[in-house]
Structures are given as structure tokens and as C-alpha cells.
């Protein structure tokens, strides 16, 4: 029994108000028919006895107060899922756009998801080797982690994400049961195309599910895109026991869309006009990563966000950093120097690293090397600022050694080729080689035992070469 309501009582930006509606539920999906032909979907975001406020996914263009029929569907936003979604491409709200027809299955899942019970989570400990030294060595990615890339416009975050996808051994000990879920929110066509091509070239296309809401697609629709994508990822990981890597790009567009809807609802803004629930809303995305106790399968998230004006204290990166388990920060300066990947090491962090590395996971000295590299590189910054005041020639011998180390570290450790795939052992050995440029007494973060085992002062030849 589908009652249709004719007409609307007001339209404001992406929101419409429908009066006299009976039996509407909060968060329910409604279907509009505009002018008898065009179909649109909407979601009830406030509902009262006699009227409901509805957010229209496709935008309200073309709708008038009289030409619209509204039908309640009786259920919240759902998506049909089966294993067949692998290798397919959908639009931002989960409708196939690759011409292979709809997904046929009885499994319909509410896209809002439910919080995982902390008692049933398993603490992630499995190291994922990405082949990128700055990540593996210093901000190790762990299976089941959410580790965002904080980037800026024009920086090679897409290339980095693609390299991670190509090289990461997500399903190494899982007999290839792995998959990738890719969600694009308001990104340019070229970006989506770049990822599609990369997936194709590396031969993983049949393991990839893509949800695309491009820059010219309806803005409100992208509020649903990551939810749909994560619902698909959770289904594959926790029902079909696959290891899933989720790439969400670009979180900034998602937040912009949220701000737009919030302001048309007339909500009280908090910082920079974003709604007060930005944190809760982002958390409802990011928290949908992890591992369930006693089950095969995992969801690992790599969200990409472009920091507006490269400002890490902007509400979007700021709140993201408070929710995610670390961050990989890209730096315009390094990029300018031609270093790829331009990972700014000091503000980058992986919170789950401490339990997934060391003996039995990577190598006994991993934590010590990482700490020492961080600490020594922090001193490079001090030496550089001193050098900029008093000139390099006036520096003490130790400070000059730090400058040499800093240069070599950026060039050899952080920098690597876009195709270069280094094993963790290579990465750690490289770390020791660079630490050899510093005198032993400067290495204050390493146990004496490890120092004796691994430390080797650099050849004067290498020092000279590094100083070049």
C-alpha cells in the first residue's frame, strides 16, 4: 500500500518539507517523482506528527511545490549486496553504472551500520608491508587500522594511495581472499579514472568495487557514498571473510557537503561553519574499520583528505586525527624538492604500530630504529633553523653531521621510486646505514645491546657523498 503525497510545502536548498504526512519514520527513505518522470531519492532527517523535513540526494533542481509526488518506502537507506559486487562500479548511492545490470540478492543491508561491540573486536596486530620505507619503517600500517593521508591540493596523494594498493600484502596469509573498496566523493573524473586504470594495470580489477560520486554529481548524494561503500566493505569482510582495503577520497568534499546541508537546515554552526556533530559523523565512518574476534576478515581504511590551505589545524584534519589511528602527512616543501613520496615524517604517526612490530612481526630493532630516526630527524630541524641564522660554516661539528644526515634521510629513506617495493628488512637496514652518519653518542634512543649489534659508522666516502 503505497500512499503518494502530491506537492510539497517548501523547498530550501537540498531540503524539502512535506506536510500532512502520515506514518513517516525518522531516517526513512522516500521516493520522489518529479513531473511524472524523473525519480529522486530523499531521506527524512526530522519528522513530526504533521510534517517531515526531507533531504533530497539528487538536489532539488527541477522540483516545484506542485509537480512532485512523494512516496514513503518504509525502510531506511539500504543496499543490496552479494559477492558479485566485486569488479563492479556503482554511483554514489549504490546504483550500478557499469551497464551490467542490478545486483540480485536477498541480502539488503542498512547503510548506516551499527557500532562494533568493543568486547567483540580483536586488537589489530598484523603488519601490512607496503614497500614504502617511510610508512613501513616509521608509521607502520596494521591490518584493521584506519590510517588517513593528510594531503594538500596538487600533492601526489593519489599516486601514493595507488602505490599502497599495488604493493600492500593485504591478503598474504589469507590465500588471496582480499578486496578493495574504492569510494570517490566529489573528486574529479581524472582522479577516478586514474584509480580505475591503476587497478586494471595491476590486475586487481576483479577484486575492486567502486562507488563514484564525482565532482559534478549531486552534492548531497556524497553524504551517503562512504556509508554505502563501508557497508559493502563490512559485508565482504565480516560475512564473506575477506581482507578489505577501503580507500575514501576526498573526505574534505564529504564534510563540505555536510556543512551545506547543515546550513540549509538552519543549524547552529560550531567551528568554521561546520555543524557541531562533525566529529560524531566522521567517527561513524572511521570507526567502521577493524577485525572481529575469532573471525577471518578485516576492514583497513585509508581515507584521503586534502587539508584546506595545507592547514592541519583545520577542523576536518583536526577531528579526523582525533578519531583515526594515526595519520600520514604529505608536505609541500618535500614535494617541491622532488622527493617522492613527500611524507612529512615528524607529524606522521601510526598508533597501532607499537603492537604490530618488533620480534615475531618485523625485527627486534624496529621500534628502536624508528624512535631514533624520529628523534634525530627532529634535531635536524633545529640544526637547520640555526644554520639559517648563523650560517652553515659556523655550526658545530655535530650540527653539521645532522645536516648531512637530514639530507640523506630525506633523499634515500623517505624518497623512493613510485614502483620501488622495499622489504621491511631493507628499510630497517637503510635506517641503520643512515644512522651511521651520526656519531654513536648521539643515538640516545637505542638500547646499548642493539646499538652494538647494528650500528656501523658510515664510511667517510659515503659521508662525503651524502654531504654533496
Amino acid at each position: 500500500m503505497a500512499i503518494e503525497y502530491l506537492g510539497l510545502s517548501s523547498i530550501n536548498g537540498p531540503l524539502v518539507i512535506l506536510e500532512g504526512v502520515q506514518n513517516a519514520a525518522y531516517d526513512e527513505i522516500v521516493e520522489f517523482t518529479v513531473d511524472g518522470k524523473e525519480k529522486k531519492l530523499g531521506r527524512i532527517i526530522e519528522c513530526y506528527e504533521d510534517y517531515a523535513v526531507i533531504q533530497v540526494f539528487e538536489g532539488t533542481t527541477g522540483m516545484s511545490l506542485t509537480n512532485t509526488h512523494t512516496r514513503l518506502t518504509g525502510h531506511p537507506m539500504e543496499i543490496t549486496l552479494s559477492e558479485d559486487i566485486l569488479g563492479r562500479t556503482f554511483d554514489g548511492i549504490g546504483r550500478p553504472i557499469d551497464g551490467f545490470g542490478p545486483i540480485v540478492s536477498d541480502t539488503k543491508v542498512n547503510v548506516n551500520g551499527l557500532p562494533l561491540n568493543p568486547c567483540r573486536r580483536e586488537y589489530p596486530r598484523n603488519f601490512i608491508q607496503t614497500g614504502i620505507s617511510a610508512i613501513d619503517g616509521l608509521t607502520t600500517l596494521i591490518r584493521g587500522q584506519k590510517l588517513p593521508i593528510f594531503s594538500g591540493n596538487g600533492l601526489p596523494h593519489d599516486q601514493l594511495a595507488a602505490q599502497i594498493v599495488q604493493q600492500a600484502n593485504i591478503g598474504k596469509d589469507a590465500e588471496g581472499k582480499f578486496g578493495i573498496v574504492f569510494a570517490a566523493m566529489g573528486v574529479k573524473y581524472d582522479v577516478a579514472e586514474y584509480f580505475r586504470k591503476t587497478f586494471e594495470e595491476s590486475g586487481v580489477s576483479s577484486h575492486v568495487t567502486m562507488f563514484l560520486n564525482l565532482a559534478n554529481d549531486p552534492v548531497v548524494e556524497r553524504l551517503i557514498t562512504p556509508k554505502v561503500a563501508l557497508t559493502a566493505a563490512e559485508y565482504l569482510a565480516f560475512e564473506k571473510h575477506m581482507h578489505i582495503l577501503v580507500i575514501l577520497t576526498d573526505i574534505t568534499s564529504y564534510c563540505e557537503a555536510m556543512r551545506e546541508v547543515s546550513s540549509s537546515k538552519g543549524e547552529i554552526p560550531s567551528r568554521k561553519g561546520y555543524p557541531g556533530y562533525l566529529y560524531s559523523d566522521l567517527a561513524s565512518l572511521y570507526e567502521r574499520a577493524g577485525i572481529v574476534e575469532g573471525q577471518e576478515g578485516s576492514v583497513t581504511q585509508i581515507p584521503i583528505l586534502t587539508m584546506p590551505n595545507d592547514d592541519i589545524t583545520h577542523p576536518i584534519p583536526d577531528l579526523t586525527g582525533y578519531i583515526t589511528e594515526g595519520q600520514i602527512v604529505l608536505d609541500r616543501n618535500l614535494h617541491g624538492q622532488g622527493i617522492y613520496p613527500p611524507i612529512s615524517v615528524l607529524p606522521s604517526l601510526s598508533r597501532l604500530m607499537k603492537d604490530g612490530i618488533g620480534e615475531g612481526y618485523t625485527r627486534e630493532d624496529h621500534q628502536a630504529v624508528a624512535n631514533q630516526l624520529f628523534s634525530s630527524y627532529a634535531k635536524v630541524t633545529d640544526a637547520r633553523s640555526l644554520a639559517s641564522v648563523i650560517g652553515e660554516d659556523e655550526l658545530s661539528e655535530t650540527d653539521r653531521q645532522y645536516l648531512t644526515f637530514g639530507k640523506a634521510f630525506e633523499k634515500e629513506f623517505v624518497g623512493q621510486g613510485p614502483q620501488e617495493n622495499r622489504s621491511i628488512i631493507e628499510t630497517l637496514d637503510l635506517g641503520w646505514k643512515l644512522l651511521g652518519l651520526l656519531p654513536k653518542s648521539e643515538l640516545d634512543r637505542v638500547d646499548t645491546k642493539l646499538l652494538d649489534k647494528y650500528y656501523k659508522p658510515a664510511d667517510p666516502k659515503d659521508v662525503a657523498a651524502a654531504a654533496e
Partner: protein
Amino acid sequence: MSEKTGVIYGINGPIIYMKNAVGFKMSEMVYVGKEKLVGEVISLQGDTTMVQVYEETSGMKPGELVYGTDSAVSVLLGPGILNNIYDGIQRPLEKIAEQSGKYITRGVSASGLDEEKKWDVTIVVKPGDKLHGGDIIATCPETPSIVHKSMMTPLIESATVKSVKPDGRYTVLEPIITVELPDGTTQDLTLAQKWPIRVPRPSLKRLPASEPLVTGQRVLDTIFPIARGGTAAIPGGFGTGKTMTQHSIAKFSNANVIIYIGCGERGNEMTEVLEDFSKLEDPQTGNKLMARTTLIANTSNMPVAAREASIYTGITLAEYYRDMGYDVAIMADSTSRWAEALRELSGRMEEMPAEEGFPAYLASRLSAFYERAGMVTTLNGLQGSVSIIGAVSPQGGDFSEPVTMNTKRFVRCFWGLDKALAYARHYPAINWMQSYSEYVGDMSPWYKEHVDPKFISDRTEIVAILNAEDKLNETVKLIGSDVLPDDQKLTLEIARVIRLGFLQQNAFHKDDQNVPLKKQFLMMETILKLYHVSQKLVQQGHPMSVLRAEGIYDKVIAIKYDVPNDHLEMFDDYSKMIDDFYQTVLEKNA
């Protein structure tokens, strides 16, 4: 349950409205809709009643019913609270998982305590005894670490014991004692009692702060100590180590009971605490840490209204154990998420915002929360304390935002975390120039008596050296350290020893993660002795380069690893080593 009901008129996220519903009280607990979701009345305006719902409201419809309960949102207090993990309104997550699997679904009802389990109860009153509210009526071993003492609820002012059951095994809801009230009616008492979460439990008298909550962290215990019954805030941007610091305190502090509130934080973090604390040993008792711990997990993706409640649930549990005469420490991670929950709900209620969209009552709510800490004489004459350690997550790491500013007004310890220290992996990244503790003066008699008479003067000297270094660093930034005179170079060198060897602490090293006060004191003594000896040498004209060449500074830095916590006699060797160093320098450069 009363028959009072209302009809839902409107729904806006976690807030629902009722029109013309009469008889609901402020803070009353209600059940909302067909699924009987738990909610609380938060506003009564004319004919509109507003309720905040502690669960997702998706799919709820206007016209569904709201059922009143006539009682405020409460927790059930009794044995079984420890070694447990709850959501924000005291539902055991383990029970929820048994009912609904890996996801937390809606409308699950689960009692805060295991109502089936029988406890080994010893009754400590006899017929004819006069009881007052808060008096202990029975005890039972709750965990290997904690003896649970059930009390007569403070809501009953006085009563006479009429009959008691024999000692034996009882569940939390079985009557064990019958008392006669002054008006002649009788009432059954059980092991458990209910208490509304927003009402502080009464105590007899507040006591002044006098002894420290020892945490095993040097920068806290020695430099910025917190008292038992004290309050501290840990503000810091993301990645500066708020959570790690709280974990360390929860693991190593000498409180009897730990209440860990994960308020709007990561799910994996709570899982980590749960896994770790079930395995690790409590350094005080040797039992598992969970035997003295209760976790309250309201992760960031769980409903926002329950996040607001979780802080109150936590502090009520803490006050209950305080009333048994225990020292309780609360870790609230993070109070900013709680403040944001207030903001979100306030926004949905269309209240007038104050700073940055936070409601105007933010400050009064924060102060009311922190004032529930304290060392007290309980109603039954014991002494107990609640210490609150609240993490603050300032937006953009900027300490001038409303939550940090207001928190600063109500806490007496401020442990400011610093991004630059964290970037250099100096942990705990507590900035010694920004942080402070107002308890140092109050507690110096305790340190003098229980650790060493020189403890406080040593601490003062260490702090003075760090301050001097900070000033010198301004100069060094401009001209480099090479051109400084030797006495200033020495100050820098000793400050380096203090920073690396004393302030910095390795949470993963077995000897360094938890350091007894005695060792903290001896470390200070050794560093200062080295300082004084070096000063003498510098005054005699020996350059710093000569002093440094002996390698003694790095040896002192390594004390934290090289001297095991149970071999403090090794400090004598260091003392001798410093004397030898003095002689060697003199001889070599005579």
C-alpha cells in the same frame, strides 16, 4: 513502573519531543517507542517535553508511545562492577554481545549487575543494631583484589536491624537484611542499591589534599604530582600521547580501584585496554589489573546522548567504591568529547550558544563534575578518595579553546602535552614549562616524611635548572651553543641529562615504565651531585669539552635503564663514579 505515558510528536536525531504530556519530571528515565529505547527527560517547556534517547532513533515514528518510570536515570551498585566493561548507561557490553552478536543493536536490555551470580556474603550487622545511611551491612570478595562492602543506601537516614539472613551465598537482589524504619515500616536490604547518576553520593566531610597518588611516572610524581582526591587535566592535540599517559597511570598508579571512561574515543583503544588489563599484573597486589578496573566504553560511533551520560555513570561508580574506603582514580578520555556531546544536544534543542557553539552551561557542568573528586571521610567513618584525571582534546591543539580554558579553572594539576616533544618522540610529552601542580605545597610534608627530607628541595632545584635552560635556549636559537660561557654550557648539559634521563620515560621498558619514588629521588640526587661537582670544576676553569669527554653525562642518562628498580644500592656506585670523575678531571688537567 507507573502507567504514565506520552505520545511522540517529533524526532530530531537523538532528541524527541512530546506535546501535552503531563507528569514527566526532569531527569526522569523513560522508555521510548515500540523498541523501548532508554531515554531521559531533559527539558519541560510549556506543553513540550523533550527527551534525549540513549540509542539510535532511526525508524522511529511520531505517534509511538513514551513510558515513564518515575525514577531518575540510575546505576545499580553492587558486587560485579569490577572486571567488567559497560556502555555509557551501565549495560554490560559482554551481555549485549551475547544477545546481539558483534554489533551493538538497539533496545537491548541488560542489568548492570549479574543477577544470577551468587556471592560469598558475610553479614556484619546483627538484629537490634542501629544503622545510619551509608553503614556497611555485608561484605563479599568481589575480585581477588577488592573486598566489596555493601552499604545501606544513604537515602535511608536511620533504621534498626530487625532480622538478618545467615552468612552464605546470595545474589545481588536477594534480601539479606530486614530493617525497621523510624516510622515503623520495614524494608528489605540487598547487596545492591540504586543511585541516580547526576546526584553526588553524600559523604561526611571533605579532607584536604595531603598525600600523592603515586603513578610511577617521574615527570608526574616528582615534578607535577597529583594528590589522592585531586583533579588533573591532560590537554593535548592528537598524537601527543593523552591516551598513553592515561594507560600508564591506570596500570601503575597506587589507587585501589580504577574507573576508565572511554568517552567518544576509538573502539580499538578500549579493546586494547580490555586485552592488556586482563593479562597484565597489578603492581600493588600481583593480581590481574582487571580485578581492580571497570571500563566504560562509549566509543565515538555509539549514540551521542549516552556519551554525555557515561561521565556521570563513571563518577557514580567511583563514589560508590570511595564510600567503601578505597582510593579510586578515574580516567576520563576524553572530556572534550563529552563537551561536544553537550554541544550537539544543545544545538538540537535550539538553545542559545555561547563560545564556539558550546552551551553557556558548559563551565558549570565541568565544575560540577570535577568537584565530585576529593578525599573524604565517608558516612560510615572510613577514609576514601576519588581522583579525576581528565584528558582534553583541544581543537587544533590550541589551549585557548573553551573546554581547555574552563577545565583549567577547575583542576589543580595541568599536564599540558606538547606537539614538538611528541614529534621528537619525547614521551611522556608533558611540557614542563606550561604544566603546573598546585598540590606540591600541600604534599611536601608527606614527601619529606615518606621519601626523603631533601625531596622537595631537590625538585625545586631540578625545576630551576629546566627554567634556566629554557631562557638560554632563546639565545642558543640565535647564536648557537658553542659561543656560550662554560657555566651556561653546563646548565644546558645538565638540563639535557634531566630531559633525557629523568623526564623522558620509556613505557615499553620493564624497569622504566613504573619507577618507585625512592628511585626517582635517588636519580635526582645523582643528577644534582653531578651538577654540583661539574660546577666546581667549571669554576676552577676546566672547559665543558673536557668534562664531556669523560662520558659521565651519558652514563647518568642511562641510569633509568641500567639500575633495576630492586637494586637501588647501585646508586652508591654512581656516587663514587662522580667522585672519581672529579679526581680524574683534576689529575688529567693539573
